């Protein structure tokens, strides 16, 4: 392997909303290697790479390129110094051709005219040179995802990239496309390019990469030779729990059925078959966890159960009533609460006060409104009570929510959804990106709800949380239930990792036990 080509030292990045994405990270790669960067969602991989590409600015830390300190204020600087990035979401203009996308910003000209011919020639030459087959004249909106990926890589190469960052490039590819991509990446390596490969698909890392660095909760855990570690080792290092937040959970005998998901199949707006014949149920006083790498159908389960999306095939019943054709309000009136994943998009109206935000569930309830006027006294009392009960740090309930920290905004959401003592609650990433104090508080409250008989559907990318809180557990992989566990406390993270990453799958019979 070559000598060190790039080093990032002491990188710390805190987002304006207070989330610490990177904590004093050091990371280095050698010339001509394919280096994997692995870790769970939210571990800080993408942030670190965005800093390297000049898309984000770190508060602290330095970047050295060939032992020379560099600062990348914007992507242009990074491109000029030979760093290229292929983003998870394609940075392509759909109505333009492949060649036009390729040369955007550095267009060849003939007089006043954009020189289409030269652009197409340049594209064709480059694609031949790296044996990436693309049709320069094709419109980007007409080409396959795999080809789009190639165009992205070629785009970076066209701008002279020697170090190539690929952010989860295989997430959108078919196995065949992935295979082809790997061949090409190995070829690039032979040509002397250095590649940083972000992924959480361990078999791919094993197959493709030379070394790997594991990230967890904003820091690097270590760098290893790929040949020295097994997939199981990596999985353990990735998901291993460092902070153990113990929650005291009394055993509760589950009561009657609250939620029945029956043979649900769903095609999402991108035409992806996101759920395939999913069935499970949930009972009073029980927490059912959903584990899985993001994008394996969890999002769709939540959307369907809450009424945000319409059921296409199969059925969902809450307390014995089918929710087909029911509005979100109808579903809420069945006694359902929902802590949404994206608290800023769905959870709050950020420019409004804490009070306005905590009342949005029950504003039309006769407790809080007369025929015409709202009952201000009751609403004020409710807001004040929730601020105290849920330890929401704010000066008063009239403060706009956007002036609160992330953890306190989440407490506003939780307070609203919990105080009604729902029969059924969907908690989607309830503690993502918030401080430890808030996490502990919210988990405790959740367990308290369960003890009062609430049925809880918990979706979380935080394995520690899922294992700690859940009674029963399902694991999602590629839109299917890959595993069902009767007792979540008996599973090890290693085992869970294997199912999440698709290395193992239970039999249909075992999975069928999810319906009781």
């Amino acid at each position, binding site marked *: 392997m070559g000598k060190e080509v790039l080093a990032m030292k002491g990188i710390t990045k805190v987002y304006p909303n207070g989330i610490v994405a990177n904590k004093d990270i050091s990371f280095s790669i050698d010339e001509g290697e394919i280096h994997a960067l692995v870790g769970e969602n939210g571990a800080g991989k993408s942030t670190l790479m965005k800093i390297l590409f000049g898309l984000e600015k770190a508060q602290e830390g330095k970047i050295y390129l060939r032992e020379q300190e560099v600062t990348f204020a914007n992507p242009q600087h990074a491109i000029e110094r030979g760093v290229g990035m292929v983003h998870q979401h394609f940075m392509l203009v759909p109505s333009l051709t492949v060649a036009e996308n390729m040369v955007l910003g550095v267009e060849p000209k003939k007089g006043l005219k954009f020189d289409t011919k030269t652009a197409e020639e340049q594209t064709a030459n480059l694609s031949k040179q790296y044996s990436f087959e693309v049709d320069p004249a094709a419109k980007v909106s007409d080409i396959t995802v795999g080809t789009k990926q190639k165009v992205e890589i070629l785009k970076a190469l066209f701008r002279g990239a020697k170090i190539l960052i690929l952010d989860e490039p295989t997430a959108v590819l078919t196995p065949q496309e992935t295979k082809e991509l790997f061949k090409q990446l190995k070829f690039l390596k032979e040509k002397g390019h250095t590649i940083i490969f972000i992924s959480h698909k361990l078999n791919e890392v094993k197959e493709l990469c030379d070394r790997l660095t594991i990230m967890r909760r904003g820091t690097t855990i270590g760098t290893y030779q790929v040949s020295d570690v097994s997939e199981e080792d990596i999985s353990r290092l990735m998901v291993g729990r460092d902070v153990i937040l113990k929650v005291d959970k009394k055993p509760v005998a589950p009561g009657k059925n609250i939620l029945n998901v029956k043979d649900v199949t769903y095609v999402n707006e991108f035409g992806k078959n996101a759920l395939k014949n999913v069935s499970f149920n949930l009972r009073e006083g029980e927490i059912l966890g959903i584990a899985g790498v993001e994008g394996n159908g969890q999002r769709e389960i939540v959307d369907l159960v809450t009424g945000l999306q319409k059921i296409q095939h199969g059925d969902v019943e809450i307390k014995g009533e089918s929710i087909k054709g029911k509005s*979100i*309000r109808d579903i809420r009136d069945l006694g359902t609460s929902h802590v949404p994943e994206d608290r800023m998009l769905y959870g709050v109206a950020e420019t409004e006060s804490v009070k306005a935000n905590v009342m949005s569930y029950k*504003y039309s309830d006769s407790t809080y409104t007369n025929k015409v*006027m709202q009952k201000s006294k009751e609403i004020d009392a409710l807001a004040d009570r929730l601020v105290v009960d849920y330890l929401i740090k*704010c000066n008063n309930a009239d403060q706009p929510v956007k002036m609160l920290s992330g953890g306190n905004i989440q407490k506003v959401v939780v307070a609203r959804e919990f105080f009604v003592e729902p029969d059924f609650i969907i908690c989607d990433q309830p503690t993502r990106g918030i401080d430890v104090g808030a996490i502990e508080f919210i988990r405790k409250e959740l367990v308290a709800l369960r003890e009062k008989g609430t049925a809880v559907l918990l979706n979380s990318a935080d394995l520690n949380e899922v294992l700690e809180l859940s009674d029963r557990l399902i694991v999602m992989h590629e839109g299917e239930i890959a595993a069902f566990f009767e007792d979540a406390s008996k599973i090890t993270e290693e085992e869970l990792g294997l199912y999440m990453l698709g290395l193992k799958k239970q039999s249909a019979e075992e999975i069928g036990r999810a319906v009781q």
Partner: protein
Amino acid sequence: MIKKLDRLRRFEMIRTLAAVGLALGIAFLLILFTSEQPIDALRAFILGPISKFRYFGNVLELMIPLLFTGLAVSVMFSANQFNLISEGAFFVGALGSSWIATNFLLPAGIHPVVGILVAGLIGAVVAMIPAILKLKWNADVLVSSLMLNYILMFLGFYFLNYHLRDPQAGDMASFKFPDSARLMKILPGTRVHIGLIVAILAVILIYLFMFKTRWGYEIRMVGKNESFAKYSGMNVFRVIIVSQMVGGFLAGLGGGIEMLGMYTRFKYKTLPGFGWDGVIVAILAKNNPALVPVGAFFLAYLRIGADIMSRSTDVSSQLVGIIQGVVIILVAAEHFMSKRKNRIIYEESMADLSAVKEAK
């Protein structure tokens, strides 16, 4: 922490005043450069409206329609719909009240009430149209409401020409309104009519509606974050339609009141422009009904001042157009004086932080 809110709120006030001041400054400069009698012009502009009781009466008279359209636009914009139908709704409202006034014989107390209520209802119906076009077919509200305004104008002229026109009147105008239909004057020496009281009542009611009822709450939440409203179980479709109808009702009501309060015949030759003025008032008031009177007063004062100036000196009253534009842009500009605002937020947050640390 409470200090932080107060400082920010105070800052927002200062910022609005600065915008107004800057706009007036530009106006003064324009007067200085273009007028041969700048001192007289300035005096007439600034002091004119309070120089005579009658002039101040003019300010109040002009405020009445501005209050209604200002409220109308505030409610519509609160639902995050750029519906400019107030202009057309005001116009058809005025026409509707003229119809009731000239074609029906009702007792004095009831006649104007029926007239303005009909005006409001017509306004509510037309205001719904752009919202439905948007919700059903995704047609841009702004463009469709602008076009609809012209259609309503021509429809109105047709109606006037074929059903209300007084052939004896020289111009195209309706029959004369009977006295029973006209609104009572309330300030002797001016033309200020009972519509001002209705307008003030409307301000109070709409304020209560927007901030003290669940329907106002729904409108505000839909306007602030539609996804959140949907997630909370609100019927976004219905909320938007209702908000536009309430706005249209107010604008139509304004048209009816203006017509029966200030005129003896319907004789608009074009759209009167109060809908656009409503946009200015709503922006100045930041869509808050309680602040609409402030914006309406400011605009009315400016207009009357400019009018007096143009009658007594060589400066055109259209100067107001420039002042309005500058004020809107600066008041709505997020980055106007934003450095100062950010510093306040930063300083106060830091102070909070150290206070928290000390407390620990």
